[in-house]
């Protein structure tokens, strides 16, 4: 009896899993983001920008009927893999997009590319993906992890900061950030802390920093980490030490950090005041629709549907022509919020990086202000390791 039941269930499962409509030339897009837990603020920027972009494309990316599948990876690689498997096997998506965390990206990448599905990372920029583990089907609308801290390293070197203390979470992106920073910063390193991913309280690390007595701190403390760190930095009375950071003070965290961040510096490929038509359109529409300011997580993600749109239009909506779609994406022929850019051979953008300062404007609003270019048309450090025959 039991065996028979099992067989019946097995058959039923097979029927249910059969591709319902894989051949109908409908565009299916997966979005994997971090939508719960302390880092959900980053995922919210990503998801909101994604929805906005698709809405602005009239709900038809590339002129095709578009269906979106959204998944919350909870910042966990294993959950990310489950979502990716579900999206490629059950939902039959042609693109998997999003992904906040580099460790999630590294786990998800082979699942997606093995299934002959495109992967567009709109945040995570794990260095192996830019180098040895690059793939013809992986594109980035963000950056390689090292690029932004490279700009910060150059900035601090140019400004003559004598020595620093480095702090970052202990995972792929944290290590990439420090590697990138040290590639251009040649001053003294007074100390370094790699904290665990579940950490929320930085009091002990702050004591450590003060005792080391550096002129400045270089930090990579995205989202909730940045909020805790800068608040506690101020509460510990450490304002004499200058705070430089990447992905830590931005529109996602500034309202929660408040005055504690004013006067600190960061670097980035984008700022809300960049003078490009697509950027103006994006910032205005985003503020209007959601009532808050977009951060870089939103800007990067906003580009992805437009990239896909340009490629699908180039092949006249023929989703089966994956080579054609890939070639079209490599041209980056779409209006980007960062202005026109080119893809490198590893599908990472070659782009400008800017110096950004946290300021308080006349109305008391705390925001990032663009203070000029640090790097022009900056290439990442790994593209030569990437052997793509293109």
């Amino acid at each position, binding site marked *: 009896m039991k065996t028979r039941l099992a067989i019946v269930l097995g058959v039923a499962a097979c029927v249910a899993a059969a591709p319902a409509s894989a051949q109908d030339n409908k565009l299916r897009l997966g979005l994997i983001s971090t939508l*719960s*837990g*302390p880092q959900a603020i980053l995922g919210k920027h990503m998801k909101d920008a994604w929805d906005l972009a698709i809405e602005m494309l009239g709900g038809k990316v590339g002129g095709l009927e578009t269906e979106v599948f959204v998944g919350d990876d909870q910042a966990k690689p294993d959950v990310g893999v489950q979502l990716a498997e579900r999206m490629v096997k059950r939902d039959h998506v042609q693109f998997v997009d999003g992904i906040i965390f580099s460790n999630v990206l590294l786990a998800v990448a082979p699942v997606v590319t093995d299934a002959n599905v495109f992967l567009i990372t709109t945040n995570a920029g794990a260095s192996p993906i830019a180098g040895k583990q690059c793939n013809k089907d992986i594109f980035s609308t963000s950056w390689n992890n090292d690029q932004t801290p490279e700009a910060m390293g150059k900035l601090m070197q140019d400004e003559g900061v004598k020595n620093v203390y480095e702090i970052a979470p202990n995972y792929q992106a944290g290590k990439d950030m420090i590697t990138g920073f040290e590639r251009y910063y040649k001053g003294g390193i007074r100390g370094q802390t790699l904290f665990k991913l579940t950490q929320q309280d930085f009091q002990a690390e702050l004591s450590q920093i003060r*005792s080391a007595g550096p002129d400045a701190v270089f930090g990579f403390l995205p989202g909730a980490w940045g*909020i*805790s760190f800068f608040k*506690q930095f101020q509460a510990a009375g450490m304002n004499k030490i200058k705070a430089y950071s990447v992905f830590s003070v931005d529109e996602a965290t500034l309202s929660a950090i408040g005055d504690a961040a004013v006067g600190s510096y960061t670097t980035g490929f984008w700022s809300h005041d960049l003078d490009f038509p697509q950027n103006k359109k994006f910032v205005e529409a985003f503020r209007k629709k959601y009532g808050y300011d977009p951060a870089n997580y939103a800007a990067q993600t906003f580009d992805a549907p437009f990239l896909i749109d340009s490629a699908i239009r180039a092949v006249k909506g023929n989703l089966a022509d994956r080579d054609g779609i890939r070639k079209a994406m490599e041209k980056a022929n779409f209006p980007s919020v960062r202005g026109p850019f080119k893809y490198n051979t590893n599908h990472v953008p070659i782009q400008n990086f800017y110096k950004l300062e946290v300021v308080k404007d006349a109305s008391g609003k705390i925001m990032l202000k663009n203070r000029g270019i640090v790097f022009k048309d900056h290439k990442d450090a790994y593209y030569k390791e990437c052997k793509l025959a293109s």
Partner: protein
Amino acid sequence: MDPLLALEQTLNGIQFGVFLFLVSAGLTLVFGIMNFVNLAHGSLYMVGAYYGATVYQITGSFLLAVVIVIPACLLTGIVLELITIRPLYPRDHLDQVLATFGLILFFNEAVRMLWGPAALFMPQPEGLTGHVEIISGAPYPVYRLVIIGVGLLIALFLYLLITKTRIGMLIRAGASNRPMVGALGVNITNLFTKVFGLGAVLAGIAGLMAGPVLTVQSGMGEEMLILAFVVIVIGGVGSIRGAFVASLLVGIVDTLGRTSIPALLNVVVSHNAAQTAGPALASMLIYILMAAVLFFRPSGLFAARTG
């Protein structure tokens, strides 16, 4: 490490230890006296944090949050005990673990539904935002000193409650020989509800105070729960004194280890190896401590249970 820094890190360790004590005191009472494994104890900590953050957001008064959170947690604890915990007393530990694990899932989803998936950030209470220089050259945040102070006061209160009052006597009696207390005509059921409520309040206070220094989020209780179990195993199940000593021990060892091991390893091995092994070794430290304590004292530092 220079002595001033070591002193400051010890202070940080004590502050962390005080949190652990508030969570593990309730856990050790419930486990020791009621012989009940309550995995949902961390959820009560989380609920306390959410109550606190909500009241603070609405009223802007931390004092009011304290006044409201304590009875709210007591109520939550008592209702939880009456509805789900009480029927589980006669069942074995496996059933209790399964049921209270279910409660963890329930609470995590419940706060997600009520407060949303994103974490709440609670500002430091007004008037406690500054810092004082108790160690020269190292200003220390006032709020953290308040945490230490409150924790020590609660420890003193528990000490007096356990050693000087009738209910304390019953709790001690219950921890060492439960059937005998029942045989002597004490209403055990009633006592259990009180103890469970007390544990809920302590966890809730810890959650409330953690709000401004940590992020208030679904699932925040589990990490604390694991540490709390380490604490009660080291301290001896059922012993408040054990929980107190073990909490401070775990707090200090974890903080000092986390900050000094990577630096120490740097001296011995290459920089890269130290950066990889250091954080890993530091996070294992308290479990190594637990194993060592159990090797020499299998029932913990202050074993309360005798029969």
